[in-house]
């Protein structure tokens, strides 16, 4: 099913043609000079008379709509009509006084009068938008139902509507456009489906084109709904795939086996007994064999502080093909999953973005922290599903990031690695002592020679990073966990 165009009032009474003409005649009375006023009249009014017109469903009382006229223009339709008349009339004289031709030409006058006699429509509209689900999960279909009501006194003979779908959302089913004719007080409803995309999406004003019946005058306006329509779509932070961390840890107990001997599970070494060592770590077997006291050391398991750094520069908004998920989307998804997994493992996790908008969530733990991260990943402007507008200052951002990073933090960088910048940032941060793991969603395609070249460049960039001692997960189409498992097999220590 696509758009539903049901109008209450389609069924009722009188002929449309006469209705249309009487309406335009009425319009004609408030002509040019009056126009501005009547437009502005459309800006509010109708605040009081809204509710009683509803046929008893659960809507809240509509408030004053906001209609802004952007342009009023002549479409120059029917300008040729008088010419047709004159042509026929002239011919009628030339060709032996044919009255029939003259008669045919008179039709031109009829339409010319129709065109001249119709004034500019003065729309007063109320728009209401309803979402089937305001907080869907990513990929869920959300049905948007739009109701437009003619709040004015006159019939709007030709009303063309284009809904202001948020930039990041693509309409899946149905159409966000609609055309109708509305008598005073009547409503038109249409609906369409958008698959939800991560983020906070606000609907923009609806574009409205109102024409008079002959189509000679056109009012181009925008209407806002009484309440802003917002769709919030948060990614679910399900923890898949343990991302093995590197050896840089804090002094707190966690799950990363370190090279430090002490209490723990995995055998590390034995050493001479020192006074005060706990009894349960004394090597009793050895004591029985040789009579010497020795102490077992285990690999200490500690927690790490991890900062997830998402590459959200304009360059990172790349996808293998139009319509595919872009690399930033995939990065954010991976960051969300890692965040959850790491937090679950007892590590302290923070968030940062490399992009024009600053995003910094200091490493932390706990449910509050998880909720805050989820919120940031869902709707922070730095991670928006569409490329940022602002300028990005690389060195400034890097300097600030270094100041913010706790000294014992390791980094997981999420970047498609389509240029050298992030690779160099990763190497520099690694050199500063923040051990770096790079998770790189692969945005390259293999069709054209240019795409192949980009793919090869990216691969060589990855191998350069690996040579420099950084861990890189090259994440293709497979699930992240698979990619991590594949890459982790090669890692040591």
């Amino acid at each position, binding site marked *: 099913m696509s758009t539903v165009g049901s109008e209450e009032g389609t069924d009722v009474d009188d002929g449309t043609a006469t209705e249309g003409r009487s309406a335009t005649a009425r319009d004609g009375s408030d002509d040019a000079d009056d126009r501005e006023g009547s437009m502005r009249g459309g800006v509010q009014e109708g605040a009081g008379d809204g509710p009683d017109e509803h046929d008893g469903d659960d809507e809240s009382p509509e408030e004053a709509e906001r209609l802004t006229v952007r342009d009023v223009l002549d479409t120059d339709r029917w300008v040729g009509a008088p010419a047709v008349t004159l042509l026929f009339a002239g011919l009628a004289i030339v060709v032996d006084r044919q009255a029939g031709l003259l008669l045919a030409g008179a039709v031109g*006058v009829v339409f010319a009068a129709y065109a001249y006699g119709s004034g500019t429509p003065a729309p007063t509209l109320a728009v209401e938008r309803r979402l089937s689900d305001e907080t869907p999960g990513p990929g869920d279909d959300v049905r948007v139902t739009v109701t437009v009501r003619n709040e004015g006194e006159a019939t709007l003979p030709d009303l063309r509507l284009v809904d202001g779908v948020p930039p990041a959302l693509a309409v899946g089913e149905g159409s966000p456009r609609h055309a109708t004719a509305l008598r005073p007080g009547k409503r038109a409803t249409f609906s369409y489906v958008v698959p939800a995309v991560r983020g906070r999406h606000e609907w923009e004003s609806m574009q409205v084109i109102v024409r008079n019946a002959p189509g000679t005058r056109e009012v181009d306006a925008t209407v806002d709904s009484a309440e802003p329509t917002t769709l919030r779509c948060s990614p679910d932070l399900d923890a898949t795939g343990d991302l093995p961390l590197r050896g840089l840890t804090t002094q707190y107990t966690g799950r990363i086996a370190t090279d430090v001997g002490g209490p723990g599970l995995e055998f590390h070494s034995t050493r001479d007994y020192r006074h005060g060592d706990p009894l349960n770590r004394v090597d009793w077997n050895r004591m029985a064999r040789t009579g010497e006291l020795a102490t077992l050391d285990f690999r200490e398991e500690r927690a790490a502080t991890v900062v997830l750094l998402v590459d959200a520069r304009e360059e990172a908004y790349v996808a293998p093909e139009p319509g595919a998920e872009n690399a930033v989307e995939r990065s954010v998804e991976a960051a969300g999953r890692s965040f959850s997994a790491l937090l679950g493992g007892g590590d302290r996790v923070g968030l940062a973005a490399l992009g024009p908008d600053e995003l910094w969530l200091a490493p932390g733990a706990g449910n509050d922290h998880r909720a805050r991260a989820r919120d940031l990943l869902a709707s922070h402007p730095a991670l928006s599903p569409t490329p940022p507008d602002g300028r990005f200052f690389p060195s400034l951002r890097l300097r600030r990031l270094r100041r913010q990073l706790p000294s014992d933090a390791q980094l997981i960088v999420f970047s498609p690695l389509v240029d050298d910048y992030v690779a160099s940032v990763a190497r520099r941060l690694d050199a500063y002592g923040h051990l770096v793991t790079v998770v790189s969603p692969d945005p390259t395609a293999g069709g054209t020679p240019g795409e192949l070249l980009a793919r090869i460049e990216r691969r060589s960039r990855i191998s350069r990073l690996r040579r420099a001692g950084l861990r890189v997960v090259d994440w293709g189409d497979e699930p992240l966990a698979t990619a991590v498992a594949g890459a982790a097999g090669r890692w040591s220590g």
Partner: protein
Amino acid sequence: MSGTSAVANDGDERTNGHDGDRKLAAGEGATGSADDADDTETHQRGVDRSPATFSASLSLLAGLFSVLGSGLGVLTAAAPGFAGLLVLAAGLYRGSRRAVTGGGVVLLGGVVFAGVGGGPPAGLLLGALGALLAWDYGENAITMGEQLGRAADTRRAELFHAAASLGVGVVGSGVVYGIYLGASGGQPVTALVFLLLAVVLLAGVLSE
């Protein structure tokens, strides 16, 4: 590096694709009515911008009536009429305003042909009315297609427009024909021409 930009471009396109949808959702209202449809069309992928089917078929129907009207008395006048119908159909198929207007003009040419050949006044009236309505519906179909696309439900607005034009045309021609019948008492055609001219000018002045 050029390779990198190739990827980057791909991504850009993708985001533009998204963006484009917004632009077409948001921006086209402003441009749609004018003739810069070609301009908008290139940017907007994914939306079928061909003329609205309902108005287009009404346009062809009106064109057919026009041919009928011109061919009523003078059968040969149906030939240019049919040519006009073909041009009209081509224009509607391709979404070309110029072709639709051309088709309307050729249809009117058929009416002139019939008039010169001495066709009956009622037939000529029907021919002219049909030609003007064919152009009106056709142009409306194109505008509707450009502004909203074929996927949108535009039926009601098209119907209203068509009915309004038809009503005006039929009532107007009826009045004209009535005057003709009542006053066909041998007034010189030239006088009637000047009368018509006066009406046109008056209408023009009143509209200012």
